[in-house]
């Protein structure tokens, strides 16, 4: 890029998107969705709910570890560190607000479900229609807006894969009359994980690990 005309907006976007070039966020999100599949798997095998919760929580802990250690041990030694300017900080703030709104609506859905406890007639439509519709809309809106704000295009696909999981589970249950939650959550999670690992492999090829001395230069 030796030309003297540089579009600073494009350059800033390039620097920002390089932050997601490692695929670590994709793997993290894939693992989070697979946690539901793992929980369902333990339930299907006839183990008690305790094991299901342990399996589910274990995958969530693994996802968090992958995100934190991946960035620290894979991304930073290969790509270096950057502190983003006001534009980048504004993007993060918007996404944080979005996440907070999504959490509040999620809590509202949970409270709605909790209010039907002990009332099977009232619970059925909530479980069959309201929760799947809420999940789908919430995931599509949340991930699409986050993808737009963060300039992270793969989030549109990830959002779609998250969104289809619950309706797919419900549809399969109604059509086949068997619980296929493992497949309904596991297949989208696997697709996200494969995408993440492909991006990670490309990243590792593009940015080989540097020697320590390369990070400390005499200027």
């Amino acid at each position, binding site marked *: 890029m030796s030309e*003297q005309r540089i579009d*600073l907006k494009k350059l*800033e976007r390039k*620097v920002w998107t390089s932050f997601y070039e490692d695929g670590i966020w994709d793997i993290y999100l894939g693992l989070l969705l697979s946690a539901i599949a793992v929980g369902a798997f333990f339930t299907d095998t006839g183990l008690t709910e305790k094991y299901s919760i342990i399996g589910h929580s274990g995958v969530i802990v693994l996802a968090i570890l992958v995100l934190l250690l991946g960035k620290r041990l894979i991304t930073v030694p290969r790509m270096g*560190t950057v502190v983003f*300017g006001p534009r980048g900080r504004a993007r993060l703030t918007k996404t944080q607000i979005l996440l907070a709104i999504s959490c509040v609506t999620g809590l509202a859905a949970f409270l709605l479900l909790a209010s039907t406890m002990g009332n099977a007639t009232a619970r059925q439509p909530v479980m069959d229609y309201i929760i799947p519709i809420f999940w789908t809309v919430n995931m599509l809106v949340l991930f699409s807006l986050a993808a737009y704000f963060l300039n992270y295009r793969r989030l549109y696909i990830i959002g779609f894969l998250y969104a289809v999981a619950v309706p797919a589970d419900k549809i399969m249950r109604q059509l086949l009359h068997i619980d296929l939650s493992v497949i309904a959550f596991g297949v989208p999670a696997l697709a996200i994980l494969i995408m993440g690992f492909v991006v990670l492999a490309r990243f590792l090829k593009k940015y080989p690990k540097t020697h*320590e001395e*390369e990070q400390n230069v005499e200027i």
Partner: protein
Amino acid sequence: MSRKDRKRHESPPITDVDRIIHEPSRYLIMAYLYVVESADFLFLLRQTGLTKGNLSSHLGRLEKSGYVDIKKRFSGKIPQTLLKLTREGRTAFEAYRNNMKRALANLPRGEK
């Protein structure tokens, strides 16, 4: 003097542009540092595609001119070189871009 000629007369001559920034590699370094708050040497090395020696020598020049602030620190056991545009560097970069834009916009059209 017409308005157009007056505007052309007011714009800085091309020879007045900041020669420190005018060098393409240094301009690229300044552009990257302009769009972020700070970055380390490795990040700039990856983004610009310059060689280590080249980047190092250009950064030295920019530091000498007071445009880039260079700090060394340790991140755990790993040494890290942090780079940041100074306020002077930011102003100089903006001024360079404006000057170049005006100087190039006012060049007479060439004959076809």
